[in-house]
Every structure is written in C-alpha cells, then in structure tokens.
C-alpha cells in the first residue's frame, strides 16, 4: 500500500510498549525461532549492525554488551521502540513474534563473542591525541567542544571500532544524515560551505565552518552543491598507534564497570596481587576481601584518565581496623618516567569506634579538594555505596545516595595511570573490609542515576 516502512516520521506506529505487559523471558527462542530471527535480521538490521553483528554505522552486537540492556525484555523494547536521538528506528510495524525472534537472534549474536577487531590502543593516550589534533574544535564529549561535527559522547557504544577508524581516516565514507556538507555560491561569487541543516524548494540553511547559522534564498544564489565529502578533514596521516589510541579513547564510552569477582583481572585489566586477598560470597554477589595488613590489588589502568567530568561509585564493606585507611586510589603516572605524579583521586575512610566516615580526595596540578564530614558516621560491617561526582565546577561526595560534602574545584583531566584497591598507591594505610563493585561514568550523575545502594541493615 502506501509508504510501507518508510521514514520514521511518516510512520504512524503503535504506542511504545512498556515493560509491564511483556514476559521477562523470550517466549520465541527455539532453534527454529533463532533461524527465523537470523533471516529477519539480515534484511532489517544487518546493513547497519553488520550481517554477523560485527557493527558498523550501528553498534556492535557480538560482544554480549548491550548499552540499553541485554535482558530479553530490554532487547524486545529496544527493537520495537527504537532509541531516541539515534539513527536506530523502532520496528513498530513488526508483529511481536518477529520482534521476539529478532531479540533471540541478537542475543545469540552476543554469545558468539566479539569479532576479530579488538581495541588495541590506550584510551588515555587517545585522549591526548584527541587534544593535540584539536578534535574538540568541531566535536563535543560530555559538553565542551564545537558543534560542526557530531557529539562524540558515548560514540563507542553506537559505532563499531572499524567504523570509528574509518570515520577518522576517511570521514566521507559514511556521513551521518544530519552532517552532510553543502556549499553555496552567492550571486557575488562568494563560496560558503557548511553542514546542511534544512532545505526546501526556495531556501537552504546551513551551519558554516565558523559554527554560525546561515540562511539563503535559492533565488539569490548562483548554485548549491552537495559534495560527497565531509567537512571533516581526513586524518589519514595519523600514526598507527595514534589512530588506535584515539579509537580506544572514543570507544571507551562513558561508563566502565569493575566487578570484584576474581583476583587476576578486574574490569578487563590484569592485576598484581599483594598479600592474600580472597574472593568471598556476599549478599551482593562475589567480592574481594582485604585483611587490613598486607592485602591489595594493583590494576594497570586509570579508569578516569582524560575525564573532564565524572562519577566514581563503589560498593564496599568496611570492617574496622586501623583509623586511617586508603582503600581505592586512582593515580596518574608520569609518561616519561612511569613514576606516580601527585595527581590522584582517592576514597579513604576513618574508623571511629564501631563506626566510620568517608574522606574523598581529588587533585590535579595545584587544584585539590578533600571532602570529609566527621559527623556523618556509618556502621561498620555492612555494605555501603559511596560516590565522588565532579561536574566540571563542583566536587561532591555521597554515602548511600545521600550527599555529605561539596566544594568548588577546577580539575584538569588526569593523564593515564594506574589504580590500587585495598591500599594507597605507595602501599601504606591498608584497608580491612571488602569491595564488590565500582563504576566509572564520564559525566556527573544525579543520585537517582547511582547504582542502587545496598539495603540498610
């Protein structure tokens, strides 16, 4: 009939479905459903997400990590409703059966393991490449930057690694619909190039290379060209390591989660084990327990390197011991010598009888701030959520979702470095207790967005 499955804007669609009326488990995930889902996927999804889920213009689906949720229900809803402010349309016109089959196949793709295109670069070094090449003149990440190019916040979750690489080296290969180039030539012969914002039969609108909005009547122009080139220069001359580091930086996304469920590898990074920390079972799942004497884990990665804004959350259980304990330390390293600089981020506690209070510390260059509220006492021996949040101007800390302190701070991003858990980076002030989870987000979260704090005892 007319305009079957045409542009989203033309599609009437049904109301977005909500969680409540959906089964939790995919009711159509048999081998036959999977095969049907595979064939549906090829025609509908493969041209953006890759025919094997390897990603492309659309996100990679073969890693098993799904930004918008990997449960059966969540996959169903994402496929059906689409993702606002992205190019992912909703499959409103598909029957539920076909959406479930697609969800089953997408989940299956996730089980297959990532295709052979690993991130080999270093994200922190990539942040420096981003800075050196003035990418922020045209792009934004977490706020600051220019508007000529697309916002790159969380771009790693939206595009495959190979697509990011291609977009840096040959930006014209696949230009996002909202960033096509237009060149107009005025009656006086002046040529103006920019991003095509709107056009009808009589007028054309663009954002010029100086980020200014421009409006032209076609009757006043000699001509309009829609070149196949992106306004972004091709960075084909980047060295291979620089390119891979930049890709790693862009791919790092805005969130990393560290689960303390093993000793040899935390958050995908190899560890060095000191003493004999052990894996324990807790109501929150597995955790690593430290004895407060000589147990610690060193992780060769600074998860917030390059972050202009951030939220650092951890779930832990302090068990008493010495008064002053420095149990989570992110430290910048001098790139030349490998020695720790003074730039650091810390979670500390002070033990007071059978209670404790939080000390959060941030330093970059000459700017530093400690947040400590001696009156905000909490019981030992139970699980707590703590958070350090920096929004670019203010540094705040929280225990169990309740704010304890705040202070103005101008913090430059850290360079690459490493992390210690269970002790300060220079192996003093050991921690007695356990850590189960940490999450690093490259933006300031509100308490409502925090990991759910552990239930009160």
């Amino acid at each position, binding site marked *: *009939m*007319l*305009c*079957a*499955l*045409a*542009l989203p804007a*033309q599609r*009437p669609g049904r109301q977005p479905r909500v969680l409540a009326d959906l089964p939790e488990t995919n009711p159509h995930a048999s081998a036959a459903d999977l095969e*049907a889902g595979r*064939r*549906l996927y*090829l*025609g*509908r999804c*493969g*041209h953006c997400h890759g*025919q094997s889920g390897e990603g492309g213009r659309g996100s990679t689906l073969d890693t098993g990590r799904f930004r918008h949720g990997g449960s059966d229900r969540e996959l169903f809803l994402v496929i059906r409703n689409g993702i606002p402010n992205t190019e992912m*349309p909703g499959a409103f*016109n*598909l*029957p*539920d*059966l*076909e959406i479930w089959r697609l969800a089953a196949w997408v989940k299956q793709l996730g089980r297959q393991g990532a295709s052979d295109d690993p991130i080999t670069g270093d994200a922190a070094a990539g942040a420096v490449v981003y800075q050196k090449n003035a990418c922020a003149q045209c792009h934004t990440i977490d706020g600051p930057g220019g508007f000529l190019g697309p916002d790159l916040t969380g771009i790693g979750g939206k595009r495959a690694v190979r697509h990011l690489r291609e977009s840096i080296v040959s930006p014209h290969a*696949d230009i996002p*619909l909202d960033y096509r180039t237009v060149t107009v030539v005025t009656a006086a012969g002046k040529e103006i190039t920019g991003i095509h914002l709107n*056009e*009808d*039969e*009589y007028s054309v609108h663009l954002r010029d290379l100086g980020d200014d909005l421009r409006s032209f009547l076609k009757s006043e122009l000699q001509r309009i060209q*829609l070149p*196949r080139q992106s306004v972004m220069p091709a960075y084909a001359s980047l060295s291979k390591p620089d390119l891979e580091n930049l890709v790693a930086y862009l791919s790092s996304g805005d969130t990393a989660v560290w689960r303390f469920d093993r000793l040899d590898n935390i958050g995908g990074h190899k560890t060095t084990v000191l003493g004999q920390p052990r894996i324990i079972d807790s109501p929150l799942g597995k955790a690593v327990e430290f004895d407060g004497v000589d147990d610690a884990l060193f992780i060769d990665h600074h998860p917030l390197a390059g972050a202009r804004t951030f939220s650092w959350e951890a779930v832990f259980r302090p068990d008493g011991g010495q008064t002053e304990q420095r149990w989570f330390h992110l430290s910048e390293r001098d790139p030349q010598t490998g020695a720790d600089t003074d730039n650091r981020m810390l979670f500390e506690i002070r033990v007071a009888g059978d209670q404790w209070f939080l000390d959060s510390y941030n330093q970059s260059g000459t700017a530093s701030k400690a947040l400590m509220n001696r009156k905000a006492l909490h019981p030992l021996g139970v699980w707590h959520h703590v958070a350090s949040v920096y929004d670019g101007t203010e540094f705040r800390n929280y225990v169990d979702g309740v704010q304890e302190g705040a202070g103005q701070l101008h913090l430059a991003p850290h360079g690459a470095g490493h992390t210690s858990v269970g002790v300060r980076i220079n192996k003093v002030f050991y921690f007695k207790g356990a850590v189960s989870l940490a999450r690093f987000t490259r933006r300031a979260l509100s308490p409502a967005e925090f990991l759910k704090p552990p239930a009160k005892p």
Partner: protein
Amino acid sequence: MSNAAHSRRDRSSARRLRLFLAALSLAGPILGQGLPITYDRLLKATQEPGNWLTYGGDYRSHHYSSLNQITADNVHRLRVKWIYQMHRPKVETTPIVVDGVMYVTRPPSDVIALDAETGRALWTFEYRLSARVYTCCGEVNRGLAILGSTLYLTTLDAKLIALDARSGRQLWKKDIADPALNYSATAAPLAVKDKVIVGIAGAEGGIRGFLDAYDAKTGERAWRFWTVPAPGEAGSETWGGDSWRHGGASTWTTGSYDPELNLLYWGTGNPGPDYNGDVRPGDNLYSCSLLALDPDTGKLRWYFQFTPHDTRDWDATQVPVLLDSTLGGRRRKLVVVPSRNGFYYVLDRETGEFLLAKPFVKQTWAKEIDKKGRPVLNPGQEPTTEGNDSIWPGVDGANNWMSPSYHPATRLLYFNAREERRRYFKTDAPEFRPGEPFFGGGGGGTRFRPEESWGKLIAMTPETGEIQWEHRILSPPWAGVLSTAGNLVFSATPSGNFYALDARTGKELWRFNGGERVHASPISFLSRGKQIITIAIGDLLIAFGLD
C-alpha cells in the same frame, strides 16, 4: 391539559419559530440550498464549477476546475482566507462542496460541514472506532461521496455510514468487512446511479480484497467483486496453493466511471505478502490491475494488470483518468494511468486494449513493456534477504494515490512523480494473524543521495506519453494536482510549499509555505461568487482567495 390544546400550542410555536428563522435568514445567505445532488447532477458535475461534487471532480476524474477568476495574471494576489485546524496527523481529505458548504473528513473517520466562506464548522460527526484496527500507513480518510442529501463515509473500522448532509445525523451504518481480520476502509466512495461503490484496504494485513456496491437508500449490499478469485473461478490459476486467501489486491483509491459505456474503472493494490512472492507463484490476478466493471452487476468486463506477480508493493491504486482522443488516426475512448511501477499507460477503455507504455521516471526493473502490455523483466531486481538497493522506483512508487489532473484547453495531463531508489528486502513469508502486518519484507532504511530521492510535477501529452515540461521539487511528493481554466496548475511539496504554475509553460507564479508535509489534493469552488482554492497542509485545511 388536553391533547388538542397541546397540539394547538405546538402548531402555534412552530409557526413562531418559522417566522423567527425566516427573519434570521435575511441576515445571511442560506447555505446548502443546492441539495439534493441527483445522479443527473453528478453526470453533469462539470456544469457546476461552483461546486465540487465527486472525489475526482467529475466521473472522468479530471480534477479540473473551469473557474477562471484566479488566473495566471492575478494569482500573485492569492492570500489565505481561513484555516480550519484538524489536530490530527496525515489529513488526506478531498472535500465535497455544495453551495457554500464544504464537507470534509478528519482522521480517523470524522466528518465536518464547514461554511466555505468562513471556515467555521456547521456540524461535526465524530465517529468512535468500534475496534482497534491494524493499518499499515496511518489512520487516514480521503473523503466522501454525496447523492441526494446524503453523504457516504467509509470508516477505518470498515463500515459504510450514511449521513444526512444538512444535519450530520447518521441515517444508517453497515459493516463492509471485519476489522478484526485487518480490513479497513480509507477511500472516498463513488455514487453511481442508485448505488454507492466502496473500496477496501488492508493488503498489508493479509486481507482478500474486493470492491462492493451498496444500495444508496437502504445500505443493502448490491454486489461484491472479489479482486482475488477463489479456486475454480477465472484467474484462480494465477495463485499457488492457498495463497489466494490472503492475496490482498485492495481497492483503496476512488475509481472513475463512464456513463456511456456504463463501466466503472477501479485500480487494485498489491498482492500479499508484499515482498515475498515465493508463496504465491503466478501472476496473482487481479492484483496491481485496472478493473472495468459493470456498476449494475459488478461483473468484470475487462482487466489490465500493470505489474504481474508484484514483489515491490506497487499497487495500481492510482486514479484512472478518462479521456476521448484521437490515437493512430482513430477516435478512441481512453483511460490513462501513470503507474506506481514507473510507466505511464494508455488503454482503450472500451476493450482494455493496451495501446502505450512509457517510463516517466528512472526505472530499473523492466527492460520494456511488450506489445501486449506485459513487462519484460530485468534480472536482479527482486527483494533479497540481505537487501537489494539497486531498485528504482521506491516502495512508495513513481506515483501513488494522489489525484492527477487533465486540462481540456492545454490538453495536458498533470501529475506528481517520485524519483527514488530504495533498498528492498525479503523475510520469511508471514503467517496471517489478526491485528498484525503481513509484509514478508520491507523497503527503505538506508542513506540515499539527494539525486536518488526527489520529485517533479509532470505536464504530459496524454496520447503519446511525451513530457512537455517538468517542475522539479526537492523530495518525492504526496500531493495531488488541480488545473484550472485560469491557466493554472496547483500542487504542493513535502516541504509544505503550496504553489501555482502557468499551465502552459510550467513557470512558477505563486507559492505559500504551509510548513508541513502535504498528503492531499487541492480543489476549487465558489463561495459567495468568488473562487476559492483549498488544500490540506499537514493537519490544517487552508482556503485561499484573491485579496
């Protein structure tokens, strides 16, 4: 009080009321005095240019107005006269106008009588759908038919409703089909003699299509022509297995009528499932066809299939335009169709004989149309599992449901054409399920360059298919065309620009930015003796007049 006293008092107040109303009427013209619209008046609709009496303007669907107050010389003075706000998406209505009253439909299935002078509502018939209805393409309605003093409305939930044109009161309501089985109705009916011809929609939901006729007075069904034959009937050999049961071939755009030949011309839609033809081997008659039917009996006189075994959703539900002309030195009664498949067709409307086909857009699927009118196919032009993006025109076609226009003085046919490349993909053949689509694939969903997706208004010599001039527009249009005796052609663009061209040269003379996509056809009529042009732009119905 006695009954007699009661009755006396009633008579006396009725007289007072009549006097009062008569006094009132001096204050303004009485609207709608032109009722009833007899069949004879419908036959001579072109003699009443002040009204717009059928969906296509007349039975030949010329969509032409012989009014000439607004001309190429003064159209620059055209201004908005009023706006009626619908507050509903995708308004596709073509109004009926009778002596200063404009009858319009509003999605999904409402009817409003407007004062054509002021745009103010005189009455509103608000229809509540009886059930949730599966629709592929929006909860749309394209207009009404009028006969006598009755308006005929089809509803999204597949009912036919008769309304009194003076009051908006419902006279009767009949089921056309079961909406739970994905039947819906969106087309304006066509009143012919004492019957109302009614099309059906739902080929994206796995219906079996038909065309119906109902007694205009009682609403009883007079006949039904199944557009997909059942086993044993002529044409059933063109369907494999049980595929005929959900074979589609809907009838969702209003057809035309030739009273001399007593033949009804009606286009049919795509076969189902749309994009996966494997389960329906054969030509799939009478999908993607033009049918010539006897309006008294519903008997098929002839058919012509534009796209046998369609797998690209190329319905032949374009408005068929009836012309009489000389072709090859012989006087002919013609029916012409710029088809969704990208070819312009000329047929003899008496016999269905194929006379001519010519592409009017870029097309990649057919080498040519052979002497019998059958396409000679190019390889590699079918939807594939991974997606085939080499096919022109797109799934929405080179043309669609919007009205073309024929101008008797310029002797040109004007219509909007869609130049488009799209990506077609095929999925497993679906099982029919109530409330769910029945596509077997889809189209769209990739990035095409501006030169792969644009539009144009074509002025064509209908006898030869020769294009005289084109008016290029930015993207593929969804608007119909009106031509007028003022040497003007009106149409609109997806950007919301409503414009007027010189009918002879194609020179643009006037435009108005309505700010939203246009899914409607303009019409013209008189209000208080002055020519008005109206069109729905987005969810607004806008009337234009000279300042």
